[in-house]
């Protein structure tokens, strides 16, 4: 029995008759859809997970001494793979934030949130026989409790105790109670401190990058490096995210009135630049993936032309017994559409599987995999794949529908 839409039935039968050829043509579409969808999803997941991390610090401003370079310093190497960390600012140059400047900042911020000082220095460290470099932060112990979380152990209180970041602890195999030496013996004295706490992972951040750093009290820091009343950085936490801009402008207006003395940085610039470079990268890779769809389109075109050429006589018969041109057109568009649809559906299923693997492998988390911004690449790639098939099928179908019935009937 044949359905009411006999034209569709003919298309289906033609596809089935040339099963292998159809499968191969559809396979091209499958590959194209999978490539586009999984790359798109990977990009979306990267962007989502980075934005999520970054938005945690959207209410934070950092004030650093003006260095003339336009404030290029960002993220103190938080995600770097080496123990060596170069802090954005170091106290061996003259650029510091003075106590007076800090008081001014505090006064401005008072209405909107809080400000605290950060001292930091990159120095040589020694654990047993291992040596390396790390950033040492000096923070007010009160502040430390507010902004950092200790995963294991406790907050350092004395001038001989420190907390260490989780990555550093792992690299140097530091435990609670481990001893470590700070400072280069060739250049002067070293200070031995005891690890009393291991910090929780904090990830990429621009205010403090503690994952690979050592955090001690400001007394400990001043004891080693001096610099009473001088700070490397002032961090501002704004209570209402919407005030971040106001605070930034107010600080700049006040402290940079005569000449530039500080750089105020908010996370929005960094966020924008990261997400835009991520999306540029994703778009670029997706464009490469789109080439595979183009190749698929060529193979669909080829199959459709073959199908039309093989069926010239059949087209002649159909036309001679009263099949309209538009119906012949429809028949071949359907055929291309079936190939596209089958390819797109298989491609969609496979891109969910392969995309998941790629996302877990490249982004490290599938947390955002089913978010609308990510999973929507599947229907999008499907639509593109199916549409390409249909568009590619238009010319062969048009050719078929315009065959002269008599000429077509003469074909062998």
């Amino acid at each position, binding site marked *: 029995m044949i359905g009411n839409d*006999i034209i569709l039935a003919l298309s289906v039968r*033609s596809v089935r008759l040339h099963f292998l050829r159809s499968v191969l043509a559809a396979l091209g579409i499958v590959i194209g859809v999978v490539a586009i969808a999984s790359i798109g999803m990977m990009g979306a997941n990267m962007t989502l997970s980075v934005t999520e991390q970054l938005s945690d610090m959207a209410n934070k401003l950092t004030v650093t001494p003006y260095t003339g370079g336009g404030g290029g310093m960002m993220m103190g190497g938080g995600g770097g793979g080496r123990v060596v960390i170069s802090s954005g600012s170091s106290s061996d140059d003259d650029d510091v934030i003075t106590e007076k400047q800090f008081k001014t900042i505090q006064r401005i911020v008072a209405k909107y949130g809080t400000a605290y000082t950060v001292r930091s220095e990159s120095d040589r460290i020694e654990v047993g026989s291992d040596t390396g470099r790390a950033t040492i932060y000096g923070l007010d112990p009160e502040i430390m409790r507010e902004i950092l979380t200790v995963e294991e152990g406790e907050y350092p209180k004395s001038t001989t105790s420190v907390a260490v970041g989780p990555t550093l602890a792992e690299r140097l195999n530091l435990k609670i109670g481990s001893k470590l030496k700070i400072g280069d013996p060739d250049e002067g004295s070293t200070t031995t401190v005891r690890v009393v706490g291991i910090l929780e992972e904090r990830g990429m951040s621009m205010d403090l990058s503690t994952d690979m750093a050592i955090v001690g009290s400001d007394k400990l820091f001043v004891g080693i490096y001096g610099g009473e009343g001088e700070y490397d950085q002032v961090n501002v936490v704004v209570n209402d995210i919407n005030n971040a801009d106001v605070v930034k402008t107010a600080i700049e207006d006040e402290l940079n009135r005569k000449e530039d003395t500080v750089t105020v940085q908010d996370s929005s610039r960094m966020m924008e630049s990261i997400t835009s470079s991520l999306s540029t990268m994703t778009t670029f890779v997706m464009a490469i993936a789109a080439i595979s769809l183009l190749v698929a389109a060529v193979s669909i075109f080829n199959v459709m032309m073959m199908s039309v050429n093989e069926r010239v006589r*059949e087209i002649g018969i159909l036309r001679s017994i009263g099949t309209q041109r538009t119906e012949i057109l429809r028949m071949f568009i359907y055929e291309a559409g079936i190939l596209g649809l089958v390819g797109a559906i298989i491609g969609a299923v496979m891109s969910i599987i392969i995309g998941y693997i790629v996302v877990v492998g490249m982004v490290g988390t599938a947390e955002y995999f089913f978010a609308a911004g990510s999973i929507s690449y599947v229907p999008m790639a499907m639509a593109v794949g199916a549409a390409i098939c249909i568009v590619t099928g238009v010319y062969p179908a048009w050719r078929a529908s315009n065959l002269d019935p008599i000429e077509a009937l003469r074909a062998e």
Partner: protein
Amino acid sequence: MSIPVIELDDVTKVYPLPAGDVTALSGISIRIDEGEFVAIMGPSGSGKSTLLNQIGCLDRPTSGDLFLAGKNTREMDDRELTSLRLSSIGYIFQKFNLIPLLSAYENVEYPYIMKHRKNDDTGRVRDLLALVGIDESLSTHKPNELSGGQQQRVAIARALVNDPAILLCDEPTGNLDSQTGTQIMEALSELHKKGRTIVMVTHESEIAAYAERTIVIRDGRVA
């Protein structure tokens, strides 16, 4: 006097070829009335198939007019001519020309579905297949699983399914042995007796003998 079913008025068909124009028909005027059984005879290449293709609206005359049931086909577009082929003309070819993807039953049902936009629920397809001697088990066969005679019977059933006013046959027995040919001719005679207008091209006089009237074509002219 009633309007003729088919009327050709000074029909000429010229095929423009690079090597020079071929005039397949020149100045043909014929009228065929309702219920007639007309045979068109003539030597090979004389223009018989070309003439039948004009009548069957598969082709358009280079000049001259073709009237079907009084309507000038020159004024019709491809869409109208196609629906004329679907509803008013039944075509039977020498090479059977069944649709290879469809079974015998479906081949007969195809023009019905095209016309009525639904499956045949009236039993007409089954009845027609029975009329031409194709039983139920054969009707599920694909054309390549049928003999030449069986294919031609299916083709006749297909030509009749939309109850066309005109039945056109281009050498319907040309690819069949004489015994099968006789059976096909008897089936056609039967249809003629029931009042169907039939125009048949043949070059065999025994076949032409089934018709009431014979038109002889020579070099594209009525001889």
